């Protein structure tokens, strides 16, 4: 029972180990960069270009090889293609740098190893040899390849046709000439593939990469053809009469097998043996794939040289272009980058269109531009190439100077320079003065360098950095902002404690103030009750006098904020600033009160007259602070 799970477990472990090893080895392989270089043909004829492909794999950002110079060969970059693929959890990078090699003279040429800088490692391509012959022998040899499979009985003219259309028969060197090639294949010969694609034979020109052909069906002379329309453009690399073509292609079509003709049908039903049997139609009869070489007629293109004395800014652009320029932002400070966007729109050899240059670079820094091309057609000879160049002003500016782009216009047969309008903007701030900055820094006490001279330094003198600091500060700094440091928050405890202490103290004071207010309230209440009692006239003389003296004490205590029991006649008289007569009456009142209180009423037990009571009441009412 346990054997099966154990076996499954072992298989799982083995599979895991296998995938781990495979993944590791794949990752190792992906890590190790490599470079190869191949020629599409190691032998060619004079004027017939070949392609050189330098392929770098295993690295994401190789430094492209530089210009390749070989005496007798005109080698030009034809762009780079990139490929990325995921394999075993890793990404494989592959960069292919393409070059077009145009032989200028016959001989054996060695293309030296090219150095590729790959993440600090230097890789070299192998040395390649290209044999250039003066005759067409090599070419014919090349063309004869793949002919072994051809059937001599098959007439290519019955299978299809190729025609090449050039809209003009004269052009300038470098001018892009659109080419349309039509391949028609008889509908009775179904196409399996188009072989290695359409090729244009000839010498002294380069061909744009052909996109996938457009397909239609046409009826020509009563026969239905599947028509493939190829579009490309050629660019002459030398002057003189160039023979363009023929355009060649070797499609693979299905044709009837030989010897399977239906003998019951008359021989002369069709002229051609290929169609001599209705059942040769692959839909009804056995068939086999056949390579059928087809080619067009060649045509002649007369290539004229560009006129001499090209303008200084001319970089090889030939065509018809317009220029559109903009800059943003419109307001900046000295030293701030401004993006100048220049768009070259039109038709021509965009691979030779370079970034328009500032007509007057004084006071500006110009950084390397970036470019992107948006093509409007299938072959890339019409579109818009946009350059974004970052510039920064060294001083105050009010406009971006015009940008200039020079090209050769084959229609007008003259060089043309496009100039943009000045772009108004505002650059503010102080000019960048490096010299003054260095001088302003001045020598420090630790400086071993001599003092800055007062003599003006020539503006173009190479500036150098200031001296090295020799004294190491005792305090160690760090990049943590102050508000993220613990000491900062600990320091906040001090004001927090102070605030809490202060608030506590104030609350205590407020509470004490409340007690005093309560005491005063009680005194007021008692004084009011006594006043009412004195007016009621129902009390004994002893009580009346005692209440009156108590009322005086309360009024004095309220006025002076003192203890009412400590108030005597003198204190009350002083508190209310009484005259002598009232003072005497007050003293008399207190005396009578004391006598009545301490003697028990023996010396003053007689009843108080209403006048006397009124006098006492008046005296109390007159006590105001």
């Amino acid at each position: 029972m346990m054997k099966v799970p154990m076996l499954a477990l072992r298989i799982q472990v083995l599979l895991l180990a296998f995938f781990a090893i495979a993944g590791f080895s794949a990752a190792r392989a992906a890590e190790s960069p490599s470079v190869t270089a191949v020629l599409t043909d190691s032998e060619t004829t004079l004027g017939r270009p070949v392609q050189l492909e330098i392929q770098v794999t295993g690295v994401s950002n190789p430094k492209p090889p530089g210009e390749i110079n070989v005496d007798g060969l005109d080698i030009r970059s034809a762009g780079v293609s990139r490929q990325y693929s995921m394999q075993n959890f890793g990404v494989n990078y592959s960069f292919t740098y393409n070059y077009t090699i145009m032989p200028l003279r016959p001989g054996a040429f060695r293309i030296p190893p090219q150095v590729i800088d790959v993440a600090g490692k230097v890789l070299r391509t192998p040395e390649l040899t290209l044999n250039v012959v003066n005759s067409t022998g090599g070419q014919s040899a090349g063309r004869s390849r793949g002919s072994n499979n051809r059937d001599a009985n098959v007439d290519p003219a019955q299978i299809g046709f190729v025609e090449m259309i050039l809209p003009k028969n004269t052009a300038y060197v470098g001018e892009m000439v659109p080419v349309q090639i039509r391949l028609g294949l008889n509908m009775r010969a179904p196409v399996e593939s188009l072989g290695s694609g359409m090729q244009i034979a000839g010498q002294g020109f380069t061909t744009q990469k052909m996109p996938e052909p457009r397909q239609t069906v046409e009826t020509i002379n009563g026969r239905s053809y599947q028509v493939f329309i190829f579009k490309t453009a050629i660019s002459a690399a030398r002057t003189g009469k160039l023979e363009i073509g023929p355009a060649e292609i070797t499609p693979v079509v299905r044709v009837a097998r030989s010897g399977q003709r239906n003998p019951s049908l008359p021989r002369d039903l069709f002229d051609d043996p290929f169609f001599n049997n209705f059942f040769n139609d692959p839909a009804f009869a056995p068939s086999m794939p056949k390579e059928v070489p087809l080619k067009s007629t060649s045509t002649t293109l007369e290539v004229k040289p560009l006129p001499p004395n090209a303008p200084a800014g001319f970089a090889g652009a030939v065509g018809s272009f317009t220029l559109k320029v903009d800059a943003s932002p419109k307001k900046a400070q000295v030293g701030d980058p401004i993006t100048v966007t220049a768009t070259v729109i039109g038709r021509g050899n965009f691979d030779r269109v370079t970034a328009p240059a500032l007509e007057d670079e004084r006071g500006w820094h110009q950084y390397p531009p970036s470019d992107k091309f948006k093509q409007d057609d299938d072959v890339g000879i019409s579109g818009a190439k946009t350059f974004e160049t970052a510039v920064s002003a060294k001083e105050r500016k009010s406009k971006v100077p015009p940008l200039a782009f020079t090209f050769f216009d084959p229609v007008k047969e003259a060089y043309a320079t496009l100039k943009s309008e000045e772009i108004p903007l505002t650059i503010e701030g102080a000019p960048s003065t490096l010299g003054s900055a260095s001088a302003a820094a001045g020598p420090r006490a630790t400086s071993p360098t001599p003092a800055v001279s007062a003599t003006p330094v020539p503006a173009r003198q190479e500036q150098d950095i200031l001296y090295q600091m020799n004294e190491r500060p005792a305090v160690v700094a760090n990049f943590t902002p102050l508000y993220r440091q613990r000491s900062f928050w600990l320091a906040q405890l001090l004001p927090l404690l102070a605030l809490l202490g202060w608030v506590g103290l104030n609350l205590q004071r407020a509470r004490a103030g409340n007690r005093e207010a309560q005491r005063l309230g009680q005194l007021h209440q008692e004084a009011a009750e006594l006043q009412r009692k004195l007016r009621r006239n129902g009390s004994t003389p002893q009580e009346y006098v005692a209440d009156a003296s108590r009322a005086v004490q309360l009024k004095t205590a309220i006025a002076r904020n003192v203890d009412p029991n400590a108030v005597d006649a003198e204190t009350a008289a002083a508190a209310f600033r009484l005259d002598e007569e009232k003072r005497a009456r007050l003293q008399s009142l207190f005396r009578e009160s004391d006598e009545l209180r301490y003697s028990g009423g023996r010396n003053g037990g007689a009843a108080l007259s209403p006048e006397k009571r009124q006098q006492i009441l008046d005296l109390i009412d007159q006590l105001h602070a």
Partner: protein
Amino acid sequence: MKRSLFYPSLGCVFLALLLCLADTVHAQEADAFARANQEFAAGRFGEALDLYNGLVNRGEMSTALFYNIGNTWYRSGDLGQAILNYERALVLEPHHPEAEANLRLVRDKARALELRRNSVERAVGRGTSAQYAIAVAVSFWVAAFALAGWLLARRRSSTLVAILSLSVLLLAGCGYALYLLETGANGGALAIVTAKTTEARLATADNAGTVLALPPGSEIKILSTRGDWSYAALPNNLRGWIPAKNAQQVRM
């Protein structure tokens, strides 16, 4: 009596030993700094960088150290690293005149791009993060005291109201300035392009469209990171992806 003096004496000896140890460490660091300077003066920039970086790794960071490292990278021909270290020196001491002068010079030579700063950021940049943090703390506590006084007073004082209003305004202003400093072009996300060739791209692929070519020493502000790529705010108000290894953050 003897017993009572034993423990204080032991404590004093221990403290003296600690002080001696700290002094020895400080002397060693100073010696490394001086030796690095000597190597620099002798033109052995690689050795000088090793010694300087050793100090950085041990946490002995200072304005002078980063300034000297910047000078050494400059002499070694790496302008991006030189600018990075001058920037670090200026973070620690924002108005260090030598670092400012050398940074201007090297930036001009490298044609490095700078992040755009608006007028508010430029005005705020005159102060330092520490200054604004202290101002925020002081204004907060003044406002707190004024508010407490206003609440506790029997009679509402107009002076207290004025102080409270002013301190709240100051608190808000300094807080905003601190926020701008920390999140703006000079904030914690500031990084310097150190690779020789860097192109900001529209997507995280080497064949994606180019947004901007960034010379070494250019300023960027890293907004996010995805794998080996960083999404960054670029000079001229652009944004794009750059390989993460091509730039280093200024604040360590």
